[in-house]
């Protein structure tokens, strides 16, 4: 029954499409959704997929490979340079301390030192795929926690290269692996030569990226066939991965390197957008496979052992990460996000454990167990992050807020601005210039620091939390402005305010028309599309540049704004009914064109009688 590619694809896609939206609705992020989808269709629940889940995972690991290529692409050398302290400092501290603690623990449990050292290095890895995805979804990418997580992950990803290169050295005494498939070329070579080959392969990727790939892409681009460039992009990734596998290196690392080399080329964005969709799908598949590969038999046989192992690993990693964050002066709540976020064992551990198994550093049973620990820890961290966000952070967040409460309560501001990026800060500055003080909520601790120095009254924290709103004076305020860039955050915030602070007038920044409809549906009256006014202002200036009178152009702009807002309101009720929406939209466009045509019509009829007195046949002349 489970035969055939179509059936498999059907199962995977259905599972993803059912589970991911539910997980997102519950605020747990897509990664957890994919993992649950995997567990559900896996051999221990519905049984749609059996052991072939492992094969799928190997295939889907390619998603990780692509992700690293993309990360490499986004990492311009200058950016890399700016983050060097964080990457080297935090990254090395995290790996070395975690590995030492785990290694010591395992040696206490009577494992031999080689096994302990190798597995501890693998366990020190965190999941780049999962963490970056979660941070992006929660909009934390630009916070201190986000940047630190990225730095540490990057260091880990790079560290995999030397670890992979060093593992054969650990295996020397036990003899070589008996036929790892992809490593034919290096089989039988002494350890030091393998190490040299590995380093040579890395170097050749760098050189090829510089001198071969870019000219090759230029050639492809000249054909003007889009799909050929996509094919070329895939070829680069797959080729690099293949080369790496040939010398026994992690393909992910190779492609990462290739990505960094290409980051400065003119094809950067092209490659990015070509690879992105493949990466997204494959990563989803990868998480599903991880979920499906969790060996519940092991869990049933020795539940205590596995579970205590998982929690021991997570606990050790969290504590070490907290210490690292502390050392690098992260705020407590940022530090918590950082530490819990990175507390799982990552996808590279699968690769490393597999490699160690081949090299006989790890026995079969232990490999299985370690794989299970890795998969389970990946399932647990999104849950931990969720718990942290909902139940732990609110308490600690308020601790910080309460220190400031005194000076908030004696000055009650009538306006609260949630989100103080460029949009929000412009509002804030405008209000301040007119003598209106506003209380500002923002969840980027860097920005909060800066704004405090500039004399703004800023609360660090998520405006979606009622306790933060309370301490910001929502009880006494009159207007709340949501100026967050992310529409879904704005949505949540509006829901909360409507529930807990119905007296507040809500004024919402929305991204586009769709987003504005959403807000209107929720009963918000003051909805501001973020780019509407600017684009009209630009349009007015275009008219002026083309020779229109400035006043006529300004009026045309004002009218357009008015018509457009009116059309938005009129169309809002119809948008759920697709057909009538299209019909009405067309009607509205026609109407708008008519109205505007009236405005610039040179033939002085219908409107503006008063202005035409010097052209019109005045009745006075009839006397």
């Amino acid at each position, binding site marked *: 029954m489970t035969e055939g590619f179509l059936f498999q694809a059907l199962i995977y896609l259905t599972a993803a499409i059912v589970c991911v939206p539910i997980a997102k609705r519950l605020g747990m992020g897509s990664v957890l959704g994919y993992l649950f989808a995997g567990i559900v269709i896996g051999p221990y629940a519905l049984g749609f997929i059996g052991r072939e889940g492992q094969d799928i995972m190997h295939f889907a690991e390619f998603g990780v490979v692509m992700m690293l290529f993309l990360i490499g692409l986004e990492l311009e050398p200058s950016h890399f340079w700016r983050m060097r302290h964080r990457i080297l400092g935090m990254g090395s501290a995290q790996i070395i301390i975690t590995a030492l603690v785990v290694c010591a623990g395992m040696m206490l449990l009577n494992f031999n030192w080689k096994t302990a050292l190798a597995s501890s290095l693998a366990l020190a890895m965190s999941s780049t795929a999962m963490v970056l995805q979660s941070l992006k979804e929660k909009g934390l990418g630009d916070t201190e926690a986000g940047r630190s997580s990225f730095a540490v992950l990057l260091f880990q990803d790079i560290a995999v290269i030397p670890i992979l290169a060093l593992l054969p050295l650990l295996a020397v005494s036990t003899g070589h692996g008996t036929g790892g498939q992809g490593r034919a070329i290096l089989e039988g070579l002494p350890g030091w030569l393998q190490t040299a080959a590995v380093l040579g392969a890395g170097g050749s990727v760098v050189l090829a990226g510089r001198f071969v790939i870019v000219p090759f892409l230029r050639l492809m681009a000249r054909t003007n066939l889009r799909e050929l460039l996509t094919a070329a992009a895939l070829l680069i990734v797959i080729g690099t991965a293949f080369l790496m596998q040939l010398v026994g290196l992690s393909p992910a690392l190779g492609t990462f390197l290739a990505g960094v080399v290409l980051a400065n080329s003119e094809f950067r964005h092209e490659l990015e957008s070509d690879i992105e969709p493949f990466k997204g799908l494959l990563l989803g598949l990868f998480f599903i496979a991880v979920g499906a590969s969790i060996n519940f038999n092991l869990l049933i046989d020795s539940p205590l052992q596995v579970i205590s192992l998982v929690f021991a690993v997570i606990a050790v990693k969290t504590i070490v990460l907290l210490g690292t964050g502390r050392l690098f002066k992260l705020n407590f709540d940022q530090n918590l996000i950082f530490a819990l976020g990175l507390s799982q064992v990552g996808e590279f551990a699968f690769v490393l454990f597999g490699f160690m198994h081949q090299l006989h550093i790890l026995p079969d049973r232990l490999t299985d167990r370690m794989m299970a620990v890795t998969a389970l820890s990946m399932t647990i961290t999104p849950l931990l992050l969720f718990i942290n966000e909902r139940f732990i952070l609110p308490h600690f967040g308020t601790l910080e807020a309460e220190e400031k409460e005194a000076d908030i309560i004696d000055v009650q501001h009538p306006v609260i601005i949630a989100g103080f990026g460029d949009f929000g800060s412009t509002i804030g500055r405008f209000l301040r210039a007119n003598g209106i003080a506003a209380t500002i909520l923002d969840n980027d601790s860097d920005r909060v620091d800066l704004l405090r120095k500039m004399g703004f009254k800023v609360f660090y924290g998520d405006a979606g939390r009622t306790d933060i709103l309370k301490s910001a004076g929502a009880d006494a305020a009159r207007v709340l402005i949501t100026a967050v860039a992310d529409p879904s955050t704005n949505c949540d915030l509006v829901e909360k305010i409507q529930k807990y602070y119905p007296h507040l007038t809500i004024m919402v920044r929305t991204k586009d028309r769709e987003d504005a409809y959403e807000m209107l549906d929720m009963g918000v009256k003051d909805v501001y599309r973020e780019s509407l006014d600017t684009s009209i202002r630009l349009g007015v200036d275009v008219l002026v540049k083309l020779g229109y009178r400035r006043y006529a152009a300004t009026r045309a702009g004002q009218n357009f704004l008015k018509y457009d807002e009116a059309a938005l309101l009129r169309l809002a009720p119809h948008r759920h009914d697709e057909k009538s929406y299209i019909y009405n939209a067309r009607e509205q466009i026609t109407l708008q064109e008519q109205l505007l045509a009236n405005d610039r019509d040179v033939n002085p009829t219908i409107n503006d009688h008063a202005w035409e*007195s010097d052209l019109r046949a005045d009745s006075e002349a009839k006397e």
Partner: protein
Amino acid sequence: MHSNFRSTFTNDENDAATPAKTIPRQGVGTHDETPLPAPRVLILFAHPRFEKSRVNRALLDALPLSDALTLHDLYEIYPDYNIDVEAEKKILLAHDILIWHHPFYMYSAPAILKQWLDLVLEYGWAHGAGGDFLKDKTAFNVITTGGTREAYRRDGFNRFTIREFLCPFEQTARLCKMTYLPPFAVQGTYRLTDEELARQAADYGFLLQQLAADACSHEEMGQFTFLNDWIEDRQRIQTP
């Protein structure tokens, strides 16, 4: 030559910071006297639909070339009605003669000119205690009306004369201790033939030239009901 007028006003929008714009270097001016050191005549032009106005375009095209003339196009400079009072005061101080040039809308001036009067002519600056900054300057209206001169009579369609309708301007000028001159009016505009329009435009150019050169007696001009009549009188004397 008329077709490019609009762009003459708009092609250098980058210097919006300097609201005063000197007149375009075109038109029928014939003078070759040495230019006066300071500008003398300020034309406050207000027309919300200038792009449609044949008559006013002809009038502006007839402005003589002179450094003594400043054309200040209110709707172009303040499309949002947000008049920069301090800048306007500065410009006023730099001139001796102030012309309110506008179409005669509903027996008065377009809205922005009223806005200008209300905001710029401040108490304590233009009038009232210490309000002597405009003292001894001269002001008058240049208007275009759809109705003929006959329509603006007690027994005519509009029941009042142009001078009566312009009373608010006249008294405003008085209040600011300025001399108020009779209006220059182009009337019955919808019926004007191109030849008649060209002649009236030339008259306007002549008037401005005389004012810019300070070549006429304001007292004498004040004797006439319309400056059009003074010009006719002047030209009759000059060209017998």
